[in-house]
């Protein structure tokens, strides 16, 4: 019963407008305090040259405030490193929650991957 709380896959995309490549972190499953090693570990493992990071929440089933705190920790690190983080795939409910908490000031939320890629 080795339950996988969070699954993360990482994908490299060419930029639609010719700039830096885009590194997509696709989350699946739950994002909770138990996701800390997976999420922060995946972030820390990214190539130093990655400048544009895209978070794909479309497969996330459950997200709580401890999970949001992990996203904030990632945004803090990205901010220090001069990286840009964009997000897509959030349900209307979690778009509202992200807005309430103010995270949307540090990662803009887009309806889908194409729109998010174009926003860099």
């Amino acid at each position, binding site marked *: 019963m080795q*339950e996988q709380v969070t699954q993360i896959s990482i994908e490299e995309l060419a930029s639609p407008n010719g700039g830096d490549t885009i590194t997509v972190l696709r989350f699946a499953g739950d994002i909770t305090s138990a996701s800390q090693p997976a999420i922060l570990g995946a972030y820390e493992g990214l190539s130093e040259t990655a400048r544009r990071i895209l978070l794909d929440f479309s497969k996330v089933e459950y997200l709580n405030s401890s999970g949001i705190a992990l996203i904030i920790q990632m945004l803090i690190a990205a901010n220090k490193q001069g990286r840009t983080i964009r997000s897509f795939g959030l349900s209307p409910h979690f778009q509202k929650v992200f807005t309430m908490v103010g995270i949307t000031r540090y990662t803009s939320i887009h309806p889908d991957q194409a729109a998010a890629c174009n926003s860099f």
Partner: protein
Amino acid sequence: MVLDQGTSRNQQDAASGQPADKGHAGHTIELRVPSRLGYEKVAMNAAASVAHLMGFCEERVEDLKTAVAEACINAMEHGNKFDDSLTVGVILSMGPSSLEVKVTDTGEGPSRSVAEAPHVPDIDKKMHEQEQARGMGMFLIQALVDEAEWVSTPASGSYARMVIRLRPDK
């Protein structure tokens, strides 16, 4: 480049300070619902949530959902006579590789003969109206779970007990 990462619940959970997961074994979740049709869905969904947490596959979760719903309906109707001041209890007990669900009511339970050998529906008889259309609940429970029994607990009432097991091959 696609690379998969994951965190197992056995890792130290540094963010919350909660000790590493030792599995669900030994944990119990209890639910009480009024004896009113509709609330069996709350019990059914709670059982499904627990089975999901334990890592049961979708097919087994669906089996359990139907079994729990049918047991609750029987407890409401036959056990508690739809008296909505009487509650139906649902006790979900997690073992190392199995989930046991007891559905309790305040009645006497099915008769011993029915409890020991639930009626197997005969579709031809039903189609020829030699048997009532309904009367499939206990059969479905028994067919869908790994273990099912009906126990009368004279002082307090009766319960249906169901077990589903995690299979290493599933």
